[in-house]
């Protein structure tokens, strides 16, 4: 019944005592308990302390900087200053890890039993206390409390592990986000385009009834039309970014692609009063490319360049768009190109450079620019997808896109490197003069 190790006569541990706090206002009940302990030869030796009110018990439990200073509390629920559940809860509150055994009379037995279910370790019927019963109860109570503490610790560890798992999961989700972005984008696009279709149809109706709604009405309509167009553009940008793209590869001219892109942007260029300087090398190899997709890339890049100079005065608002060809070894000093496995040394490449006067980007932000949805533009103006789309497309061409801050004038240089189609050796002038590692000085637009 009683674990033998505890009943043994020769204590192995020196001077260990069992500190018992008996919270009992009735002198008779307390004396009975004390007698019970006297009779026992319990080891560790029990030392009985008494409190006659809840306040006193709390005070005793709280001595000693919160350390559990009692091994067990024997608690009478009905005290002069507290009764029932309230007594138990208060004791739990001040000594959450100390085991509590309820001393119950006939009248509160049911309460005692229910308290055992809610955290008390045991209950002792006052009317039939015997030394054996009290001691056994105490030992078991302590054992259960130990188990409970262990379980709580285990639980804490589990909780910590689960939190770590959650963090790991978040990182995974983060990593997979781009993957699922495609599916998400398609879903969102579909759901948004339907209501947009209704708005568009409504606008078309009112546009045709222009005479009826007056000038202000028409102005509102045209603003709404712009909003619909913008929303659609954002959705399509998102789709572009996320869709896995199949290229329509054809022999193409990089210069034609650039002129095409600039022509499509003519309106924007005029509106923003930006001067576009074309430095297109006419004798340049062709490339194998999806020209439609590359037009989109150039538009994104030139658009960014234009937008970066919105605060500039008209005198320094120019974008230089430059093309030339070179051989790869000349670019070895360029970071990033090393990972570019698709090209071998001395392979001819076609290079596009777009330079602006927008002041560039702080070095620590430079790598973030390609992140989808990274934008510094006001809501509604930028989706933050332009550069990610551009890079995706260039990657699909096994090409390379890089950003670099440049001086004089201070701005960003975006460089796109694409493999040339065939080897221009023999029929094109050698590229020596426009070595990629050296600053290139060309006369503006000879075309």
């Amino acid at each position, binding site marked *: 019944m009683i674990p033998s190790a505890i009943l043994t006569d020769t204590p192995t541990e020196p001077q260990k005592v069992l500190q018992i706090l008996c919270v009992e206002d009735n002198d008779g009940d307390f004396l009975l308990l004390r007698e019970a302990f006297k009779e026992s030869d319990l080891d560790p030796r029990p030392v009985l302390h008494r409190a006659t009110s809840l306040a006193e018990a709390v005070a005793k439990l709280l001595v000693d900087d919160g350390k559990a200073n009692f091994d067990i509390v024997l608690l009478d629920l009905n005290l002069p200053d507290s009764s029932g559940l309230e007594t138990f809860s208060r004791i739990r509150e001040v000594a959450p890890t100390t085991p509590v055994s309820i001393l119950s009379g006939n009248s509160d037995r049911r309460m005692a039993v229910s308290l055992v279910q809610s955290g008390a370790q045991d209950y002792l019927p006052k009317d039939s206390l015997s030394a054996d019963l009290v001691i056994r109860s105490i030992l078991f109570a302590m054992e259960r409390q130990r188990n409970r503490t262990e379980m709580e610790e285990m639980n804490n560890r589990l909780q910590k592990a689960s939190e770590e798992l959650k963090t790991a999961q978040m990182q995974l989700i983060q990593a997979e986000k781009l993957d699922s972005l495609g599916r998400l984008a398609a879903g969102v*696009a*579909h*759901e948004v*385009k*339907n*209501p*947009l*279709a*209704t*708005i*568009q*149809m*409504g606008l*078309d*109706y009112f546009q*045709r009834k222009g005479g009826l709604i007056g000038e202000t009405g028409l102005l509102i309509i045209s603003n709404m039309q712009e909003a*619909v167009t913008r929303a*659609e553009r954002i*959705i*399509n940008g998102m*789709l*572009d970014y996320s869709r896995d793209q199949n290229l329509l590869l054809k022999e193409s001219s990089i210069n034609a692609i650039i002129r095409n892109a600039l022509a499509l942007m003519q309106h924007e260029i005029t509106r923003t009063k930006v001067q576009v300087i074309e430095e297109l090398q006419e004798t340049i190899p062709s490339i194998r490319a999806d020209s439609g997709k590359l037009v989109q890339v150039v538009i994104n890049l030139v658009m960014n360049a234009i937008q970066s100079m919105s605060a500039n005065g008209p005198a320094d608002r120019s974008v230089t768009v430059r093309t030339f060809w070179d051989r790869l070894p000349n670019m070895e000093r360029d970071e990033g190109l090393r990972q570019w496995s698709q090209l071998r040394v001395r392979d001819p490449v076609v290079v596009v450079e777009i330079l602006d006067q927008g002041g560039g980007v702080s070095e620590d932000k430079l790598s973030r620019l390609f992140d989808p949805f990274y934008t510094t533009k006001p809501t509604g103006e930028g989706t933050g997808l332009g550069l990610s789309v551009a890079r995706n497309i260039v990657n699909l061409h096994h090409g390379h896109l890089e950003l670099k801050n440049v001086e004089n004038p201070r701005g960003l240089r975006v460089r796109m490197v694409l493999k040339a189609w065939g080897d221009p050796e023999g029929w094109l002038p050698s590229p020596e003069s426009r070595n990629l590692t050296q600053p290139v000085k060309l006369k503006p637009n000879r075309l």
Partner: protein
Amino acid sequence: MKRVLIIDDDVALTQVLKINLDDTGNYESRIVNVSSNAIAAAREFKPDIILLDVVMPGLDGGDISAALKQDPLLSKVPVLIITALVSNDETGENAVVSSGDQVMIAKPIRLDVLTKAIEDRMSGVL
């Protein structure tokens, strides 16, 4: 007056679409929002052209399109698929994507683009 049957579960869109089409004076249109009623409605209405949505609860555009082809009364009626599944920037110059014998037009649709596509589809240009 050409008869246009609009099969699309989006009630708001179909209402505005119908008002616009009817308002041109060239079309008389009817709406079907519940796709399971589409074939019956088509038989009764005898449309010159059908505008068909793709993503609908229950029978979707593909189901309806197949059922139309099976139906001796309706198999010759030209169908123009209007869907948010394609984008305006993929549809190119005449604002439509054709794949096989299907012709798709992207939502959101401009009225002038739609009416042109309707005419082209009915005359067999598309």
